[in-house]
């Protein structure tokens, strides 16, 4: 079918709504982002390449994307578990726990970073015990993962919870009547139903972790090559008035993030298509 901008539609106001959407997206997302690209364009290709592939910068990409991936994966399984408990069981204090889930959203990330650092430092409540086991959390990449888990925890829970609530218990009963074990029911019936929500939650948690700055810088220790995240590098460059260097790194981050999110969205569509067509 040839592309047509204007279609006959029973829903009125397409022109106005579409115009508003485009304007909004431009003002809020596209113009600020393209500013980063324009600023970067002032650099020669060689300069750009040397800035974004400096060993210290490469190490920060690995750390940022690696720690975000690990945190998102952990939150996906833990979030599924918590959502399951919140949906399937009733217990005293359930509403309280349900409300606590959103707290990492509301808390200033710096507060979270300081609190986590105090807890996990070598002399902190948890850190002192982990130190006995020879595990160091604060001021290491592990600390970054802990901070990222904290700030991205609500996503998976909040995306999976409504889908789990909508799952008909009858479908599971039908599986049981047909002889399926609990595990088979979960793997073959429940998991396919919640997979799109799970993937969405994972994507949101991952994206949020990549961009996180406030909580990480307190717990990370920020050692170059070891525990220095990309957002921190950008801020460092800004403080040195190296605006072009900062935007160059930001552009690389943007491109990688965009490609990753696109990939996940395609994956999402593919898994969705398998049973809706």
């Amino acid at each position, binding site marked *: 079918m040839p592309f047509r901008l204007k279609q006959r539609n029973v829903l009125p106001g397409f022109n106005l709504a579409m115009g508003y959407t485009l304007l909004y997206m431009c003002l809020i997302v596209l113009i600020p982002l393209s500013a980063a690209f324009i600023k970067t364009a002032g650099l020669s290709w060689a300069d750009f390449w040397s800035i974004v592939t400096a060993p210290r910068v490469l190490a920060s990409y690995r750390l940022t994307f690696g720690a975000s991936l690990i945190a998102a994966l952990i939150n996906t399984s833990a979030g599924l578990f918590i959502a399951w408990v919140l949906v399937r069981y009733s217990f005293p204090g359930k509403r309280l726990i349900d409300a606590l889930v959103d707290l990492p959203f509301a808390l200033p990330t710096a507060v979270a970073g300081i609190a986590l650092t105090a807890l996990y430092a070598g002399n902190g409540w948890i850190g002192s015990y982990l130190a006995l086991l020879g595990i160091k959390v604060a001021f290491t990449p592990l600390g970054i993962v802990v901070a990222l888990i904290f700030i991205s925890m609500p996503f998976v829970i909040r995306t999976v919870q409504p889908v789990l609530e909508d799952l008909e218990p009858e479908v599971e009963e039908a599986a049981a*009547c047909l002889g399926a074990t609990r595990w088979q029911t979960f793997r*073959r019936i429940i998991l396919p139903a919640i997979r799109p929500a799970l993937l969405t939650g994972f994507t949101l948690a991952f994206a949020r972790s990549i961009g996180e700055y406030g909580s990480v810088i307190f717990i990370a220790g920020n050692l170059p090559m070891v525990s220095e995240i990309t957002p921190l590098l950008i801020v460092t460059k800004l403080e040195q008035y190296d605006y072009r260097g900062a935007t160059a790194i930001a552009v690389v981050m943007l491109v990688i993030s965009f490609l990753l999110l696109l990939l996940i969205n395609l994956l999402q569509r593919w898994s969705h298509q398998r049973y809706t067509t």
Partner: protein
Amino acid sequence: MSITIHSLSKRFGSFTALDRVELEIPKGELVALLGPSGCGKTTLLRIIAGLESADEGNILFDGEDTSARHVRDRNVGFVFQHYALFQHMSVFENIAFGLRVRPRARRPSEEQIRAKVQELLSLVQLEWLAGRYPSQLSGGQRQRIALARALAVEPQVLLLDEPFGALDTKVRKELRRWLRRLHDELHITSVFVTHDQEEALEVADRIVVMNHGRVEQIGSPQQVYDAPATPFVYQFLGHINLFHGRAHSGWVRLGGLRIQAPEYQNTESMPAIAYVRPHDIDLLREPEDSDTTISATVVRVSSLGSLVRLELLQDSDGESTEVEMTRERYAADPLQAGDQVFVKPRYLRVFLNDDPKRTPPVHWNGDGDGI
């Protein structure tokens, strides 16, 4: 497989869903659990399936207690009102599910599964839908697929929870005839829950009428319709007219009607209610005898296809009475709204008002003496 239900009770908090239910379902029969919503019929079905556990009592399959057996080991097929199909699986995979989840040792080969699914699809006459997804099917098709899925594991008992409840009238009628034919082919012991009396009367070999967690009556469709054991069964199956009156030393007086009732010989002025089906009433132009007729006025005449229904108001107390007669009979003496008539029940039953279960009902065939 025969099912024996022995003294089964189930409570949800303070609500008694089942109260010492006793029931025997012979092998190969198609039994309907009939009752209003909240009467415990679905709970009973779910306990038979093992989806719910009883507080007291037990259920025997072929004489063997099943209480300790898990749902998946009971070998029952369960069909849900809202189909409960697996949305992300094709029709083929839905039906094959029960075979695929078997432990490896008992799992059929891929060819055997394919053959079995094809056989079931042709049994439910939907071969061409194998590759579709549940969301692409109509309600009637979904329920047939759900049935095929339940039959795939070769269950010994088939349990259906309001299987046609979510379908429109025409499809429902088609599907229940089809279920009856299917049962005649397979002879698998089946229990289905319904609140639709017509459905139960048409499909079942036997009807179990339930109310407030108790079995009110068990019998063939004809038995429960023609000889209801309790006032509840009378009211629930088919239309009825009520005549309020009193029973006193062997006689029951209902408005202008006086009936001999030897069963109530020792009864001293108890409130009583007579139940009369609309088609068990004659309408006379002239009073026959003051003791066997009640005078009334026709209020409305409506034609219902093969039947004509007349609404009357009794002259003495203004109670309304419904009468049904065939078109031919009405044509012989077409009454109009406003006409004065005399109501003569041909057949009625009297129950005392206090405890309908304890007192025997009085049958009356219109000649003035109890049966």
